[in-house]
């Protein structure tokens, strides 16, 4: 896999406590990330972190351009908000593993194009 766009941090959600993200997509995305040579953060389940207001989410929201690989952008946006860590208007790109193929997500991660929440 080509190098990811390292100008943005990458946060990958494994959606570990439900089967809503197709298993093959999330496994394939994770595999591509681990083979990309890029540093990234992986979390077991963003929903669970939001429910207990994990302060790490605030760090993600505050510290610059980030690509979040999870599910529907509207869900992710309001999950962060519910945790007291609202995402900024600009600089956040949310990629949806419920609707996109792993290949499309990997391709999006390689580009610097801005797609905001």
């Amino acid at each position: 896999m080509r190098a990811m766009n390292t100008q943005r941090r990458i946060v990958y959600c494994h959606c570990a406590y439900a089967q809503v993200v197709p298993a093959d997509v999330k496994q394939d995305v994770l595999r591509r990330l681990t083979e990309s040579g890029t540093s990234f953060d992986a979390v077991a389940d963003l929903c669970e972190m939001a429910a207990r207001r994990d302060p790490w989410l605030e760090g993600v929201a505050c510290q610059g351009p980030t690509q979040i690989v999870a599910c529907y952008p509207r869900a992710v946006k309001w999950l962060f908000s519910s945790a007291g860590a609202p995402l900024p208007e600009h600089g956040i790109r949310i990629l949806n593993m419920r609707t996109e193929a792993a290949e499309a997500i990997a391709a999006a991660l390689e580009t610097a194009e801005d797609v905001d929440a």
Partner: protein
Amino acid sequence: MSAPLARSLRVVLYEGVGSRSIADADRFAMMTTLLQGGYAVTSVRTGSRTAPEGARTPIVVLGRFEHTPPREAESDSAAAPVFFRDIEGVDAPAIASIVESVHAEAGTRRPGGWKPWFPVIDFGRCTNCMQCLTFCLFDVYGVSPDKQIRVQNPSNCKTDCPACSRVCPEVAILFPKYKMGPINGDEVREEDIHREKMKVDISALLGGDIYAALRTRSQESKQRFARERDDKRALEERRRCLTKLQEQLDIPPEVLAALPSLDQIRAKTERAVAAAIQRQTPAGTEQQ
């Protein structure tokens, strides 16, 4: 939303300066195992950035270190301990055991144990009408000091029950783990607004005509809530409403079985009505 803050253990899989790289297949297996175990893992490779720590949580750094690292150090920023463990020749299942033992040593929160199922409010759509608060029988919702609806007790929510999202007139309640849109966070289309606005007779379910009472605010209406109703009729009415709810709102049977008693529902209704009337009364302290 308020839930107890708890320190969780973060795992760093370190392949930067001073540590040898890990084979791709091993890195993937290790990360998959740890994520399935509920841990957050940062993969650190030379020359690229990761999200900031941002939290004062203990960290365990795993790596194939070239020199023996200290077993434990204190991080500069947060006085949280940082543990180092050499994983030379260690496979994914053994890594999980190493992390488990650090977790026990650090006294961090045990990951998992709960399917995170709770409503998330889309405040871009919410009009603060409070229907969800009135409807939910499990006190999931509350009101913030600035009188804004909020999810107050997410862990009270009944797993796989999306019922409140179906009574929200604005389609503003999401359950990110729900199977279908727009409740799962998919975009809301015009037809969704009509489809999701199911005019369920929740007042009957709750044992009284809440909204009529709110409209008239007459003493006569208020008395209607307090008046004893024929128990048999009330139970039948409730059963009918519950069946309707189960079909229309996708409520799991076990949630229906766990519903509070009619008396509890009546008491909740009275509290909600009193609060709502107070909000609508000019002299009320919570007037909007």
